[in-house]
């Protein structure tokens, strides 16, 4: 059978369609594969810890406790609210801060730990609520 230009174009078109479908399928698979590590990256926030601290009455007290917790590798963010005597800690993904260690850190910084809780709400949501209640 003679290969005419028309037949060759039709064959080429089929091949291109298959190739296009293969590329799209591959891209979808690559994107799905890429999605998984993005969802699992350490940038995802971890647990939130809320402390109630006795003696937390002035700016320098707040600075001391804020800088102390900021240095910990487990902690990504710290917020101090003087009105509520509260210290809010955002832990990094997969990181934990044992209660005994937390108490020791607060004591060594010169304060007394009165309470510790692990709220389910987000760090920013609790922070905003503490700010509102302080007004």
């Amino acid at each position, binding site marked *: 059978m003679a290969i005419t230009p028309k037949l060759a174009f039709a064959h080429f078109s089929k091949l291109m369609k298959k190739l296009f479908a293969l590329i799209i399928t591959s891209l979808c698979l690559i994107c799905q594969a890429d999605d998984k590590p993005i969802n699992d990256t350490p940038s995802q926030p971890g647990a939130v810890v809320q402390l109630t601290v006795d003696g937390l*009455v*002035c*700016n320098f007290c707040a*600075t001391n406790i804020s800088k102390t917790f900021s240095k910990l590798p487990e902690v990504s963010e710290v917020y101090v609210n003087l009105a509520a005597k509260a210290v809010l800690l955002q832990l990094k993904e997969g990181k934990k801060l044992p209660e005994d260690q937390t108490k020791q850190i607060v004591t060594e*910084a*010169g*304060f007394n730990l009165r309470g510790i809780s692990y709220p389910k709400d987000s760090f920013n949501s609790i922070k905003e609520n503490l700010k509102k209640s302080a007004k």
Partner: protein
Amino acid sequence: MKKYLKLLFVLFLGIKSLHAQMVSAPGINFLKAEYGHTFSYTEIGRSFTGFRSVGFSGYSFNTGEGKSIEAEVAIVNQLLKRWNTEDSQANIVIGGGVGRGRTGGREGWAGTASVLADWENRRWHIMLQEQAVFVPSASRLASTLMGGWAPYLAEYDEWAPWIYYTVQHENGAGVGFVHGPSLVLMHQDLLLELRVMHSSHGYHAEAGIRSLF
């Protein structure tokens, strides 16, 4: 016995402290500087535990008798006792140091010692301090009482204003009682202070800055 030896050690090293804040949390550095009509003072140091800090300070005082006292000393501040309650904090801090000093052309060893007691809540702050600086053939002894009031309760990330009144007595014959109001502004790790003090020399301004870093 160990307790008394520890106390003697601190007193021997002994120098000054100025504020309870000069003993901070472990790993926190501090800077304090004050400038006034009859004195200038700078202190820089680091808290290695929540109860002790070490650093260096430089003093320059006018005794009011035509003499000036200058000293540069290595210092240790020790928080002896802290009381923390839900709404307040009280501290007793002692400090001391040794270094070099000079007055009237004479130079030699210098020493400083101080004891400070304070109580504060978010609205009120009261502080009593005794401070001594010894240099060859001269000394400066000062007793200071400060009371502060916050017009409103600011949060940590806001500017917090405080109004203080200070009464101080110095042993220099030409100085005596010094007293006056001051405005203090605190924002996170920064404290700025501006005083207008009255002494036998009349009114004069004093300024101070303190920071944790």
